[in-house]
């Protein structure tokens, strides 16, 4: 995983609440056995018209959105299915961070694991960003992970929360499995001292 320190880039606003992972990537794109090519299915039903042509009204399809690396969306982003294909698809498309007033638990956890930064901001700041974007669709933002701040287009800085462990892993580009593998002794001790309720092998 690439270390993350700051993410500076163009933002695109998708002003919808409760965007579920079936919208982010529909189930029929989940038949892959690797992580490649998922960008093609990102927001597929909204990005394309029924005849397959790109929907010119969809924010990601507007010319100003080309090259955007930060997605801004309404509250409870990523609800629904636990599919990690959702953050994979966002990352594959080129997004490095998602900013929203709140995230569904599993999406947030999945995104942190793969280095797609979920940034929670207050609803009022979100509303302001939506308004700013309406005036300037080229709007750029800067996210500083170490300082846990977002610099808004007007220069103001707002803070965002992240747990210390995820922050450390993202800043240093280490993945969480390594930490767990180092717990082997404690895990063995746990197994030796606790009852084993079921054995699937019979």
């Amino acid at each position, binding site marked *: 995983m690439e270390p993350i320190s700051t993410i500076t880039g163009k933002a695109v606003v998708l002003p*919808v*609440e*409760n965007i*579920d992972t*079936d*919208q982010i990537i*529909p*189930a*029929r794109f*989940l*038949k*892959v*056995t*690797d*992580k490649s090519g998922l960008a093609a299915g990102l927001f597929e*039903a909204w990005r394309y018209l*029924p005849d397959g042509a790109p929907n010119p009204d969809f924010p990601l399809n507007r010319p100003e959105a080309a090259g955007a690396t930060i997605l801004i969306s*309404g*509250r*409870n982003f990523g*609800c*629904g*299915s*636990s*599919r*990690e*294909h959702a*953050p994979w698809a966002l990352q594959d498309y080129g997004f490095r961070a998602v900013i929203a007033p*709140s995230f*569904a*638990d*599993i999406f947030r*956890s*999945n995104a942190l*694991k*793969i280095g797609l930064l979920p940034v929670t901001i207050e609803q009022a700041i979100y509303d302001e960003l939506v308004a700013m974007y309406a005036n300037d669709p080229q709007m750029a933002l800067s996210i500083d992970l170490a300082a846990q701040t977002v610099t808004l287009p007007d220069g103001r800085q707002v803070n965002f929360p992240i*747990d*210390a*462990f995820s922050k*450390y892993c993202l800043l240093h580009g280490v*993945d*969480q*499995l390594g*930490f*767990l*593998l180092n*717990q*082997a002794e*404690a*895990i063995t001790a*746990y*197994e030796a001292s*606790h009852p*084993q*309720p*079921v*054995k*699937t*092998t*019979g």
Partner: protein
Amino acid sequence: MSKPRTLFEKVWDAHLVRPETPETPAVLYIDLHLIHEVTSPQAFTELRQRGLRVRRPDKTLGTMDHSTPTTPRNHLGIIPVIDPMAISQLEQLRKNCAEFGIPLFELGDENQGIVHVIGPEQGLTQPGMTIVCGDSHTSTHGAFGALAFGIGTSEVGHVLATQCLLQRKPKTCAVRIDGRLGPGVTAKDIILALIAKYGVGGGTGYVFEYMGEAIRSLSMEERMTICNMSIEGGARAGMVAPDDTTFEYIAGRPFAPKGADFEAAVARWRTLPTDEGAVFDHELTLSASELKPMITYGTNPGMGIPIDAPVPRPEDMPDARSRAALDKALAYMGLEPGKPLLGHPVDVVFIGSCTNSRLSDLRQAAQFFRGRKVAPGVRVMVVPGSQQVKRAAEAEGLDRIFKEAGAEWREAGCSACLGMNDDKVPPGKYAVSTSNRNFEGRQGPGARTMLASPLTAAATAVTGVVTDPRTLMN
């Protein structure tokens, strides 16, 4: 005396390999890891790349359910798979399980089925356990007083390699459901009403514990229906304290403890319920006695109404944001605000999914098909949750009731719940579905889903229009 604890806290504490600190999350031990074809292949790839083995194949079980067809067996007794990508995904799971020594209920196996149906059915799901799966409806298993939740594929890899997960302790929320359900009103209506009341994000960050008179009087299968949709309320997990209903359900199942071991297990399980005086971080309430059958009109499971209520009007919404969300949902659904849903024509009825595909669900649905016909022009799919459910239903003759009425009786799997296999709702068509998600396109591109109970779905199937099941009951 030690501090009173909730059910959740007891299970959490008992599985701590390492408690959380300000700097690091807790290391939580996992007793049972269920895997399926869709969310596991990339985790096995990761394992191979790092040269890791599966730490506890004996605490892992695979099944095939999501991308599998549910078309009837051919003359050779085989369920044919024709989609090449699904074939490769199923093949991959078979290979991964064989290589790492993980037991697998594959397509065609007498125990195959939806992952959340087979765990309880086999007696693998027991009180006090931690259970995970790369699937958000793992919350279903919480009905037994287990801590069960969905995880992503990276975490599937973590559990395969270490049998542990890194977790921050969630907050607890008591969900008190008092009163008793009236006739024609079911567990599905309880959970749809709860989500309609508190919204799809209402449970974010919490583990629900369902309690109260209404919950106590429910069967295990009904409790599973409720816990299943905890995730639709935003909660990762939902739990019910184990009681005699739980123990009776588990007794005698293939993986349940036997004889003296069972008695010892029951004695342990009896210590799990929340202690008198334990404190929850939050509380939600609902009265079961006042409930009517529920149905959804929109594009998330929180957009639900009593079946005889009109579709909400944007001008009745409290703020601009919910007005915009309602406008968007009604445009997708092609529904008019202020109009009743009762009597609205329906094209497809789907009875199945990990929410409502167990034997009691099928029995409930069958009562409206007996001696009646599916309404002309309506396609009805009845899909048992597992091969075991299918056989049990056939032993009672339920399959004949469905087939004689003109419904399709299919093989076990997720089927039309998620639009990933061949069972789909066509674009623009209306479905009444016993599944758990009515998101745009969930049941196929352009599909318009209305979630409801098996009773409501069956009543709708025989009339062809959205129907209050109470009107068909004598």
